[in-house]
């Protein structure tokens, strides 16, 4: 499954430069994993209104990409957007408060799970409409090019989104205008509950990039280093004005499309889920770190502990935060 990029990252030079990167990737993934599992528990406990699309399983993609970006690089995300927000650095407090619908939330309680954003960190929002973030990222990249800035835009989407028009229109637009956009396809094998084999006749979504004259690479989406290395190369290319690039990361989500509980019908087998969990992205990077001496078990454990503490504090903050004032319902419908 691992393709070109991960092979490149396995060389001695990569090992030499990777100690700090490995720790960074590990921490980002742990932060996502714990944020999401705790959010799932809160949902199960009936504490959160609305929907919850958990990112657990796909952490290597958000972590690998985001570790290659700068704060001023812009991203557009999806309905499954918490992982991208966490990896981009959006605060736990603002995220949990938003999930709780509190006025201290990232969207002042107006957006919820599917619209979490922090424009100061280049997070142009999760999005409730599949594929809709693609053209918006193209526009953000256009703005950078227009101003002669070297920040880039990255759009995340799933395999299912590559069947919608806005993806194709956005890809072609980015290519024809030679814009600095990275197209990150998180192929988790399912469009909601429909397997990839039933929603497209190709195995590698990356093939679609070729029709827009856009280069692509396929990476093991459970290998954060592979994702990171591929992204570093694509970012350099985009910053140099060489145009958009498509990265397909083969990955998997552990929870269902929405929520935590099981589904009405078994759209996938337990064996399949276990097969992917056996290649868990965090287990993989921890094993790598321990074997090459990048980190000790104690250091890795410390990351988990520290993150758990931060999350407990953030949840307490969210629960203690005030609800929005209904008198402010019309706030921010318009500017000015």
């Amino acid at each position, binding site marked *: 499954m691992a393709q070109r990029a991960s092979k490149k990252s396995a060389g001695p030079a990569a090992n030499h430069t990777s100690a700090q990167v490995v720790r960074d990737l590990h921490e980002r993934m742990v932060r996502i994993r714990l944020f999401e599992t705790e959010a799932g528990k809160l949902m199960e406990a009936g504490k959160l209104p609305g929907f919850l699309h958990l990112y657990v399983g796909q952490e290597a993609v958000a972590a690998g990409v985001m570790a290659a970006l700068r704060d001023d690089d812009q991203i557009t995300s999806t309905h499954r957007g918490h992982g991208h927000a966490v990896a981009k650095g959006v605060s736990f407090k603002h995220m949990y408060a938003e999930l709780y619908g509190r006025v201290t939330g990232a969207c002042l309680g107006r957006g919820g799970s599917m619209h979490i954003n922090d424009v100061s960190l280049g997070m142009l929002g999760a999005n409730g409409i599949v594929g809709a973030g693609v053209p918006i990222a193209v526009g953000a990249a256009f703005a950078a090019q227009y101003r002669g800035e070297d920040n880039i835009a990255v759009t995340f989407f799933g395999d299912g989104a590559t069947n919608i028009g806005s993806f194709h229109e956005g890809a072609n637009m980015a290519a024809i205008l030679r814009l600095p956009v990275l197209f990150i396809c998180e192929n988790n094998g399912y469009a909601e509950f429909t397997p990839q084999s039933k929603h497209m006749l190709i195995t590698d979504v990356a093939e679609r990039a070729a029709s827009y004259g856009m280069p692509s690479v396929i990476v093991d989406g459970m290998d954060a280093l592979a994702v990171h290395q591929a992204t570093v190369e694509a970012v350099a290319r985009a910053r140099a004005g060489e145009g958009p690039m498509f990265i397909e990361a083969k990955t998997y989500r552990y929870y269902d499309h929405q929520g935590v509980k099981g589904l009405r019908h078994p759209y996938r087998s337990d064996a399949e889920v276990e097969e992917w969990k056996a290649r868990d992205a965090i287990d993989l990077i921890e094993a790598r770190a321990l074997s090459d001496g990048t980190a000790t078990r104690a250091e890795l454990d410390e990351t988990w502990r520290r993150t758990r503490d931060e999350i407990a504090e953030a949840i307490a903050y969210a629960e203690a935060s005030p609800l929005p004032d209904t008198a402010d319902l019309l706030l921010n419908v318009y*500017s000015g």
Partner: protein
Amino acid sequence: MTTITEAPALAPGGTARKLSYVKAFNEGLAQAMREDENVFVAGEDVAGYGGVFRMFDNLLDEFGPRRMIDTPISEAALVGLGVGAAARGLRPVVDLMFMDFIGVCLDQIVNQAAKMKYMFGGSVSVPLTITTASGAGLGAAAQHSQSLEAWLAHVPGLKVVMPSDAYTAKGLTVSAIRDDNPVVVMLNKVLLGSTSDVPEQIYGIPLGQAHTARHGSDVTVIALGRMVGEALAAAEELAAEGIEVEVIDPRTVQPLDTETMFASVRRTNRVLVVHEAVTFGGLGGEIAAQIQDAAFDYLDAPVLRIGAPFSPVPFSPVLEKAYVPDQARIVQGCRRLLERS
């Protein structure tokens, strides 16, 4: 009086001269581009060709390919490009050519541009202008002739303007570009060649402020877009019979200046709303409901709506002429209101 006048404060300095609707739009856009480096134009055939309606003539020569961008026929990506660029601080003007094409990019307008500020807790603004040509009368048939303002006026977060002449085509376009919200500028295809007095200098017309285009004491006619001219002609015709019609041009349908309408109705006690869009579910229903809520006791007759029949816009000129409201139907409507009270 049939000319639309403006308070001096809204038309600062410069010499006014006759200019066509499309040239006034073009001039306003060019001046807004000179005023703000962040303004750029993107759309199908806007640069090299100057737009199919010549809306963008000569702009490529002055502003170059960096600020005048021809795009593929990809309305969803085009509007999305505008949304993303606007969220990053530019002031995009994206052109949809025909308003009927809005269906292929409605998500970007309705779910993205309109809602982003609200959903993001106010942390971003989307100063996006969408220009498009609307209206029937050119034998362009059902997919190139619609007036869909009611669709857009229904969406919180959007603003919608409907220039009724060359003067408003320029001023409303300038205001749309300067506004920090997504604004749809609905130009009218039939009016493109019509002329009126247009100041040379740049000026904006406040969004959400109606204009009383003619004062009268007997009937109020609230007319949208091209119907303003028809209403003014109807008013002239009725004036010969001693019937004084007041004509209100809302100019902006979202936000809608209902106060000007209420004040007028309290004086005339009769009101007719006329628009090109189909009557069912059109702005006329909303305006009628608001007037009845705010000024019921002043009404001597039910609010009358005149719009298109509930049918796609027909192609054959004889059918199309029967479809679009005109001076004769407005005259007839005013008479009906006077007879009922």
